[in-house]
């Protein structure tokens, strides 16, 4: 049932843009559909490869580059211990994000993703990078919410970071639970600009709420 549902969505997405770039919409739709089945860093790398290939074909589209960076940030979080590898994945993601910053300078999603990248950098070595990167994360999230105050991914990352630093400094992260619950409750009220636009994050928001119980 689930598979046929996904197929339907993919077809719908493909159809929406069918008149102009059928292959682009089909490829993007298929690739976005694969997110759910990615389990390992290798899966995300393969998916990242897909997006990079799409980006090569569609020079004006920013979304494939966005998802390419997103996959590599996830890979960094999934890598268990090798700090050098984590940073090398993030170097790839950072390159894509730099490209996006000039391509779509007013896009809140890009700055939210940038905050996620900096979070991943921080996680590699919180002791040494804490100060520098928590500031950068704050700046990126500030820009994201200035551009789009209701962006749920910017909110999500903010809560995640607040909880993380509360943990690090021995405070109670539960003080942010209210915000997490509100975020999850209002998740569906935010409509992405198109079916290809970023929509991820609900799972993580659910996880935050679960951790509060």
């Amino acid at each position, binding site marked *: 049932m689930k598979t046929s549902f996904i197929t339907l969505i993919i077809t719908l997405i493909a159809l929406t843009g069918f008149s102009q770039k059928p*292959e682009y919409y089909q490829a993007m739709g298929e690739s976005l559909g694969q997110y759910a089945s990615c389990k390992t860093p290798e899966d995300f790398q393969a998916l990242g490869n897909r997006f990079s290939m799409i980006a090569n074909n569609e020079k004006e589209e920013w979304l494939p580059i966005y998802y390419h960076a997103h996959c590599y940030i996830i890979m960094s979080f999934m890598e268990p211990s090798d700090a050098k590898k984590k940073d090398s994945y993030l170097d790839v993601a950072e390159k894509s994000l730099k490209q996006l910053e000039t391509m779509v300078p007013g896009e809140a999603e890009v700055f939210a993703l940038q905050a996620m990248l900096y979070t991943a950098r921080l996680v590699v070595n919180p002791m040494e990078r804490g100060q520098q990167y928590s500031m950068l994360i704050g700046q990126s999230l500030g820009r994201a919410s200035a551009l789009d105050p209701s962006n749920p991914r910017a909110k999500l990352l903010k809560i995640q970071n607040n909880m993380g630093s509360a943990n690090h400094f021995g405070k109670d992260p539960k003080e942010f639970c209210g915000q997490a619950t509100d975020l999850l409750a209002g998740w569906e009220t935010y409509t992405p600009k198109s079916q290809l636009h970023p929509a991820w994050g609900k799972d993580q928001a659910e996880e935050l709420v679960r951790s509060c119980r």
Partner: protein
Amino acid sequence: MRVYLLFLFFLLIKAISAQTIISGTVNAQNDGALTGANIYLKGTYDGTSSDVNGRFSFKTQKSGNNTLMVEFIGYESFAKEVNLTGTEINLLIELKETFSRLDAVTITAGTFEAGDKKQANTITSLDMITTAGAAGDVFGALQTLPGTTTIGESGRLFVKGGDSEESQTYIDGALVHTPYISTAPNTATRGRFNPFMFKGTIFSTGGYSAEYGQALSSVLLLNTNDMPTQDQLDISVLSVGPEVAGTKLWGKGAITATLTYNNLQPYMNLVPQNFEWKKAPESASAAISLRQKTGKTGMLKLYASFDDGKFKLAQEDLTQEKMVDFALGNRNMFINTSYRTALNKNWVAATSASFTADADDVSFDGNQFDKALKGFHLKQTVSNELNEKVTFRGGGEWFSRSVEQSYQTVADTFVNQYDNNTFAAFAEAEIYASKRFVTRVGARVEHSSYLKKTNFAPRLTAAWKLNETSQFSMAWGWFHQNPNDDFLIYTNKLDYERADHYILSYQSAKSGRTLRTEVYLKDYRNLVKQNSNEFFVHEIYNNAGSGFAAGLDLFWRDKKSIKNGDYWISYSYLDTKRDYRNYPELAVPTFASKHNLAVVYKHWFGELRSLAGINYIYSSPRVYNNPNSEKFNSEKTLTYQSLDVSWSFLYRQNIIFYVAVTNVPGFKQEFGRRFSDQPGQDGLFKSSAIVPGSNRFYVIAILITLTQKGIENQLDKIQ
């Protein structure tokens, strides 16, 4: 229904087109299979990724001539023309590693680099500050690294058998003429600079680049912070005095102003002292730091500081057998500026300059001894990345130094002074033969107007990476330095002193653990000899001295084995002898310890919001000369040991409490003996033990940072 039909339509198209299967394996050149390589037909959506065995296979509807692309991070892209006819294509693809300096081999012989950028660093900027026994002193923290010897009665850097004056300190490329604060004879000094001014540190204990001259043993390169990120006010209250620093930003610039006042009187009232202080050390200083971005790539930095300090203590005059007052007043002005900009795509230019005016006024038993130093350094460098594998650097320098010493007794005044201008030029090339092998070849020429002599110094380093985690480095070079001020004020009939370095080093770094070993030999020649006690007669000086230093350094750092814990162990073995100054023969110098050990441990207690540090320092006995003994430098000092602890507590995110205690177990510390100038009536020189100012040192501090957001903290300031 329409949707369904269209979907069918897609399938139909797929079915009727001719299909070609493209399959194969992706390998790294000289290495195994590559997993996750991106394989696709250029300009199409047909492609796949390689699996764990490097294998791949995909179908395409396209026909005719197409380009197959294979891409993987860290490897050069591969492109191949394929003709799609419906027959399966099977390929064996080998990717070539791309050259990237970031993960290429680096020269590590003799060098400790501290910065936050790279994972491979042996120590970081934060370590410089959080080392327990260092109490916030850059030089103190460096003394926990191998190749250094802790000399308790000096506090200065002594590197690989070299005297402290053989080490030079540079800030943003410009020479610091007076890196240490002025202290009484036989008491430990500290650095003048706050460690959190610096974003990066390179400490080279030998074999350094041709860019650096006028140092026989080591160079310490301190790089100041770039642009601050927000307006803030830092208030620190230490047990020795308060400090206030304010930072203000504007468009492309920022200014930080710092005021510091230290007075040890209240502290000394509480903590027992070994010296008889008539006036406890008191100092006031003001500093300004300016940052301005210019154009797209330019950055101008300016730092200026003014210091005024004084103290007075009573010391026993062993010759006259009475207590005499020793008073010192020091005024120091230091200006450092640097400008760095890209000239065009390939050329980068950096200019740095520093100016120091330092005056020590000492009065001792009614005699007045004044020393004034004016120093200037200007350096211009250009560098060009000729291509990704070759970098050229070159430049010129002008060192100016003017020293005046006056000695005034009741009866007489003696004034001696000298001015010297040293001009230098250097050039070097760094050449990567591959990702695994790099050489740096350079040379340096210096001319001194006062000595009227020119020297030439070749330098060569190479590094060879065995595999991802380990590498060998070697360094060789000639190093020159002008003789000490104390000789040059009497004569210019001297030549440069010289040391030749031979260093071989091995480093292995793997996920949070680093091991370094280094063996070295230093060959000293042309050291200044003083052939009589009549120091003011210029004929008694010559360059007939010589010496050697050989040793083994070990460094082990482990950030991984203990959760939230981090430790390093440094050990140095040193074998050295020299015949210089007034030494009658080749002898072990007084500043050499055969065995040196430092163990540093830090632990983060998340629930307590605290960073705790503990370190242990050990130096084996050194020699000192007893004029009552026939044999030169034949007496031994006590073993030096210190166990220091520190505790930093993050009360709020912007308020930190800090406590540190040195020498907690109260190890007896004694640095040899000093002797009277003249023998007594019994023909013997009288002596007394050289001891530290106090057996323990306590620091208590509160650090507060105020910003508009109020969350910034001084965590990186924890000392």
